[in-house]
């Protein structure tokens, strides 16, 4: 009778396709999003995340269609992020079938957007996505924008505290140093963010071995997000969940067929 840890595959979507690269570059095609969403659901994914990495607004229309088609087939929670700049953008995504949205750069540019979204739809729909890297800010962690390409000199912990006060319902913490490397989550970063936040924390970036997932949970993550290890078939979600279950973590092991 405890809340289960969530295992969340993340699909980077552009032009209606799933892509994956290392440190947000060298993108390769990884499949059809709706098919992959159904497959991950069948394998036991606890939620799904789509990150729209499209450069243009016409491509974003394609993403709305992908969200619509996915929500028609897959009955687990779906979070969509990427390019959200206004309350209207959120409204369109929720109406298309998203359950939550994640915001990043737009909230850094204009933090009031957090409160506007939370007031209209409730903070439970709002995930703050933080792309952070180790740097010489006060806490040792800096917020980056544009998929990790640009530094901001904003201290990551100070930003998270501010965003939580404005009304985010969840934090997606992505280590830009670890992203795509499969060398393990940034445990120090997870520990530091857990210590200052009272909303659920999703750890992202660096998942490689089964032990990596366990270490992130030990550091205080409530959910684990990974992309490349699942897309390229290095691990199956079901295998990760069976491992964590055997290690004594609270895992949803679906029994209904």
């Amino acid at each position: 009778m405890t809340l289960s840890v969530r295992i969340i595959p993340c699909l980077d979507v552009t032009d209606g396709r799933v892509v994956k690269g290392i440190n947000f570059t060298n993108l390769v095609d990884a499949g059809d999003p709706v098919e992959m969403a159904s497959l991950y659901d069948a394998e036991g994914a606890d939620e799904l995340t789509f990150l729209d990495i499209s450069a243009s607004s016409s491509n974003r229309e394609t993403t709305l269609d992908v969200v619509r088609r996915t929500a028609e087939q897959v009955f687990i929670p779906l979070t969509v992020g990427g390019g959200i700049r206004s309350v209207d953008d959120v409204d369109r995504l929720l109406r298309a079938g998203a359950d939550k949205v994640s915001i990043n750069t737009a909230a850094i540019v204009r933090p009031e957007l957090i409160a506007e979204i939370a007031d209209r739809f409730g903070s439970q729909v709002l995930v703050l996505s933080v792309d952070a890297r180790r740097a010489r800010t006060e806490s040792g962690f800096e917020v980056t924008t544009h998929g990790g390409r640009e530094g901001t000199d904003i201290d990551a912990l100070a930003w998270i505290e501010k965003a939580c006060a404005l009304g985010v319902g969840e934090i997606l913490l992505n280590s830009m140093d670890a992203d795509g490397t499969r060398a393990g989550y940034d445990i120090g970063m997870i520990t530091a963010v857990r210590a200052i936040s009272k909303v659920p924390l999703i750890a992202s970036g660096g998942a490689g071995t089964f032990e990596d997932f366990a270490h992130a949970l030990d550091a205080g993550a409530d959910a684990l997000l990974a992309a490349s290890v699942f897309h390229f078939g290095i691990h199956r979600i079901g295998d990760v969940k069976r491992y964590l279950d055997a290690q004594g973590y609270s895992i949803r092991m679906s029994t209904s067929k």
Partner: protein
Amino acid sequence: MIAILDYGSGNLRSAQRAFATASDDVILTSDFNEAIEADGLVVPGVGAFAACMQGLNGVKGAEIIRKRKELERPTLGICIGMQILFSQGLEHSDKGSHAGVGIWEGEVSKVDAPILPHMGWNTVESAQQSILFKGIESESFYFVHSYAAKNAPASRATWSTYGEKFLSAIEDEYVSATQFHPEKSGRAGLALIKNWVKSL
């Protein structure tokens, strides 16, 4: 026919699709008569308690729910749609509580847990003779909420625990409700929806 009450923005599409797996005739409506006449009415939750009540009042939702109860027609509340069926909500209520639809006496208060919202998959202690949980008693369901009812207004009560024990579902003759989202709870959720649809 199953009607999903549309009284504001939010993700109603998933709810409609999920109920369509159990019934050929599912509509989204904000029309008073359509909502009254439906064989089953689903009241999804939108936003916070007060915002939800405001949205409901815009489509005479409280009147619809009370009238259906009188007419012995089934209604299913989901998440905040469960919470507003109680008489009082304490969400963001620095100046006292908000009035709910009042199908049940009782208040909805903050869940006592260090990390909120309670977000994710949790198990249930399902009620004896539950119709909703028949065959899925030991499954997990998807929750997203920070407030909950702590007292059962009817005997067929289902409980969950997160920091403390709270009411995760209630079945009271013609009015049922779940604190979790069956439309987001995968195969277990679809099975629960099917159980409810079959009972209509």
